[in-house]
């Protein structure tokens, strides 16, 4: 048994670190990330263009599609360094979601058309999975696509669509046939967000932020060559996407950085009770981090951890949520004056410590983590079935 990284991997880590600390890193992004200010669409594009300029954008893609071809350990180290350098998350919708589906199941024309723009971040993708009536029971989706000549006519609606307000394209699960078994009859369709008949309406979350949206489709004409793979096989592609190794799902390095911030805050007033809770959180984080390493070691040997990654999702999000609670506890009564997620944009002097308002915004926002990506209850169902056999 040996948990250490190889010399080459450590050297790789150094190169990434040096690249992230270099002068090409967009200053606007760095400044806002350090202050905890919300990033604009332009900031996000700057960041992704920077990652592309370093040749890192296809970090989890094979070389033949323009990816880095990195090993699982290198991917792990790369994501770790990004988080430690307080980078925003690389948006998963194009790179980690639709991209792999296109290069695995798409035809050559589709690969040529879509993959380069994903790597260069010329297109912003969003995900059209959830619907008002189908949450955790995804296969119950109702958005309809009917083939008429060389176009599909799409009618229906999607919800909780993250950052659809910025998106150029959406990948959708649509029903092309009503079948006995609901998983059959689902197809995987790529849709240009500028197509007439698409309407995006904001959903404001309890923290006051505009992160998610409803997307309505009324007689939207979608060229049939934007169907991925075969009609009726969409569920297979969707499952492939969900099972596609989701590195970093536990969020360990981000929490590490935040815990250090929290410790600096609490050091000022020496609250023994809060310090103890932070220590307990750190212990849980250590256990989670090593569990992730165990999973990584298994992947590095060619294994496919299935249900075990549900542990990372469940415990990772629990820890993230507990962390936000501790920030709120640290802020005490100064959570009351609420500036919302864009608090730093206002001209008012914050009442109380400057971390107070963002803390409570984060607390409210992070309730989502145990709900999205397959709710934690669904994750427990997966473990119960796949591992415990009940």
């Amino acid at each position: 048994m040996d948990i250490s990284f190889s010399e080459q991997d450590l050297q790789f880590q150094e190169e990434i670190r040096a690249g992230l600390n270099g002068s090409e890193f967009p200053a606007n992004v760095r400044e806002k990330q350090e202050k905890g200010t919300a990033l604009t669409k332009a900031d996000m594009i700057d960041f992704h263009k920077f990652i592309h300029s370093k040749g890192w954008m296809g970090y989890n893609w094979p070389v033949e599609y323009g990816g880095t071809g990195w090993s699982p350990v290198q991917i792990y180290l790369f994501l770790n360094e990004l988080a430690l350098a307080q980078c925003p998350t690389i948006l998963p919708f194009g790179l980690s979601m639709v991209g792999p589906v296109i290069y695995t199941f798409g035809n050559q024309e589709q690969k040529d058309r879509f993959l380069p723009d994903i790597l260069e971040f010329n297109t912003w993708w969003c995900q059209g999975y959830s619907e008002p009536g189908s949450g955790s029971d995804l296969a119950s989706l109702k958005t309809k696509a009917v083939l008429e000549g060389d176009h599909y006519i799409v009618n229906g609606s999607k919800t909780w669509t993250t950052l659809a307000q910025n998106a150029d394209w959406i990948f959708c699960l649509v029903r092309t046939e009503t079948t006995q078994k609901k998983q059959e009859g689902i197809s995987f369709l790529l849709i240009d967000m500028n197509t007439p008949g698409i309407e995006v309406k904001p959903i404001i979350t309890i923290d006051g932020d505009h992160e998610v949206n409803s997307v309505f489709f009324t007689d939207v004409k979608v060229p049939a060559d934007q169907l991925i793979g075969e009609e009726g096989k969409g569920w297979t592609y969707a499952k492939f996407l969900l099972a596609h190794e989701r590195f970093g799902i536990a969020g360990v390095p981000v929490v590490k950085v935040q815990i250090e911030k929290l410790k600096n805050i609490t050091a000022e007033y020496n609250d023994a009770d809060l310090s103890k809770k932070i220590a307990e959180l750190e212990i849980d984080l250590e256990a989670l981090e090593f569990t992730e390493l165990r999973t990584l070691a298994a992947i590095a040997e060619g294994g496919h951890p299935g249900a075990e990654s549900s542990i990372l999702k469940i415990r990772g999000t629990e820890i993230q949520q507990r962390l936000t609670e501790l920030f709120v506890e640290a802020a005490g009564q100064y959570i009351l004056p609420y500036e919302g997620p864009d608090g730093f944009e206002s001209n008012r002097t914050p009442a109380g410590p400057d971390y107070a308002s963002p803390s409570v915004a984060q607390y409210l926002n992070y309730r989502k983590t145990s709900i999205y990506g397959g709710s934690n209850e669904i994750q427990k169902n997966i473990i119960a079935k796949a591992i415990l056999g009940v």
Partner: protein
Amino acid sequence: MNLNYSDEQNMLREQVLKFCETNYDFIDREKILDSDSGYSEENWKQFAELGWLAVPFKEDNGGFNFGPIELTVLFEEFGKALVVEPYLSSVVMSGTVLEGSNHPDKSSIIEKIISGEHQVSVAYAEANIGYNFLDCVTAVSKDGDALSLNGSKSLVLNGGNADQFIVLAFHENSPALVLVDADVKGLSVQSFKTLDGQTCGELTFENVSLNTESILALGDEAESLFNRMVDISILCISAEAVGAMTSSYMKTVQYTKEREQFAQPISNFQVLQHRMVDMFIETELTKSLLIKATLQLDSDDPETGNTISALKVQVGKAGRLVGQHAVQLHGGMGVSNEMSIGHYLKRFTAIDSMFGNTQHHINKYQAK
């Protein structure tokens, strides 16, 4: 990066598993608990014959020169079957101290431990010092050339059976580890059963005379040797806890599949499924910290102490959750002494209390 056990380690695991399957079912174990010594002398002989008692010792001393990984393999399997033989006290604890000492007879003492004919226990706890074992009152005083030991030690594992004791005491304002024969004049031993069916002893020393060779380690050397012994002991009982957690959740899954209520197996109920998933998750997270601590201890990593504390906290919390859920899901059977499941809860409770409980190690971790 490779987290696989070696073939040799897997063979050891297989051997212990087989032994426990053959010799350690619940009824066998009950008989052992009812015996005077609280362990099976026959099993101990077999441990010796199988070479298990030689596992952690250096080759010079007749051992196999195995490290912490092999110990955790052994203890994980012991934990699954709730083995009560005094391996921790007689091999791990006393062995660690003896091997780290310069006692002239250490090789012959270790040889006798390996052959199973001799048992040594470490006496570290005292009545009024909680988990601050190094704040002990028991002392070795000097009168001319003569040394004498006075005081009392508490909760000495396997105390009623040990042939010798290694006693943590103060000598000339320094901590010392001293070797004392069990039949020496001035030493009285009172043996108790523990809550989980093992035994421990209360020791009283009244002018017990020692020679200078009895002092195995003194000062900083004694302190670091003692701390290392505590770290290794925590590692071993944590591995034991992981084994016991594994058995607890697996037995619970099995039971809920067989037990029918409302015309269906109770494993169909999602509330119970999620509780069992929680048991599984806590077991895996504990295993993670166990492996982390094992590898750090093996490589003398400076972070070892913190990780050991983190591990002990996780073992305490997870043991409580897994043990309580297992009892709850077994319903009335869970609280019956005739079912094994409640005995796991007892062992988790005992393990949490040893070498610093959850609270103690949270504080220690926090002060890092």
